[in-house]
């Protein structure tokens, strides 16, 4: 059944998942470890070489059409597996895996393969927004973003600390920086 997800509920799920891995809100999360925790196998496409056609397909998506998709969540009966385009930079791969795991953790029901791609050209905007939100909370939790904003860390510093791209860091920090600026401005008024 479809759960009505709010941002606080999704944040709670992300914190629960991080806690199960023994991580506090300020520590970096390895999405591959999270996949393993849930028994989800992740297959990089360059490892899919059991048949010549599969190897050719991996070559196609690493050289001819590398931007078509980053990761896919595939149903196999009750199981889920992920295939990922491992020609992409590591920070992008990490966020793609976290995004697919987001769909899984939020128990999104799909009949199709879920493909993460550059332009988020997907069918269900709400589910996409939810997966994007929880992947952000998994990789850079709100608590960490707030602390980083008060310490005025740069996108590069956050990207480095949490293993994400600078664009991802910017996306995660936008709200936290606005909040920190307002709080500091308020403090200054009362001095």
């Amino acid at each position: 059944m479809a759960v009505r997800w709010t941002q606080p509920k999704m944040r709670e799920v992300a914190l629960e998942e991080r806690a199960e891995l023994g991580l506090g809100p300020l520590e970096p999360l390895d999405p591959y470890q999270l996949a393993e925790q849930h028994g989800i196998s992740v297959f990089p496409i360059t490892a899919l070489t059991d048949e010549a056609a599969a190897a050719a397909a991996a070559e196609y998506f690493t050289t001819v059409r590398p931007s078509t998709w980053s990761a896919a969540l595939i149903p196999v009966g009750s199981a889920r597996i992920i295939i990922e385009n491992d020609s992409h930079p590591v920070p992008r791969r990490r966020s793609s895996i976290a995004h697919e795991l987001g769909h899984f953790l939020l128990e999104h029901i799909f009949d199709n393969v879920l493909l993460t791609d550059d332009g988020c050209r997907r069918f269900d905007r709400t589910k996409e927004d939810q997966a994007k939100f929880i992947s952000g909370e998994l990789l850079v939790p709100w608590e960490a973003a707030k602390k980083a904003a008060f310490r005025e860390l740069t996108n590069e510093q956050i990207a480095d600390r949490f293993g994400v791209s600078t664009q991802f860091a910017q996306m995660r920090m936008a709200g936290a920086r606005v909040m920190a600026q307002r709080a500091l401005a308020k403090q200054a008024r009362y001095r």
Partner: protein
Amino acid sequence: MPQTSVNVIALHAALDAARQAKGLSWRELARVLNLSPSTLSRLSNGHNPDVNAFAVMVQWLNVPAEQFIVTEDDDEETGDEPDLVAQLGPLLRARKDLNQADIDHLEELIGSAVRLFKAQRANPAT
């Protein structure tokens, strides 16, 4: 003496039916059972639960544990699904952001990943 194991596919299906009847998500069911959500995810992905988790699950289902025990002599339920790529092909073709070459190559990769996954599940030691 034949070795026994848990029929995880049947156990997962029974939990799925019961939780849906009660209007519970998997995460809510985990809370009710006082198990971690990943214990139930791992079950859905074909991993055996530990003895305590198994006991909690069958107790909640209110069915004898033996119902989910299989011996190596039993005709094992394979849980084979219909050809996945054949199932997914029409859905992939419906996507306007993928051209025909993309779809053909994706089908090859999905087929390969599923073969590898099933081989690993059949023989976890490899």
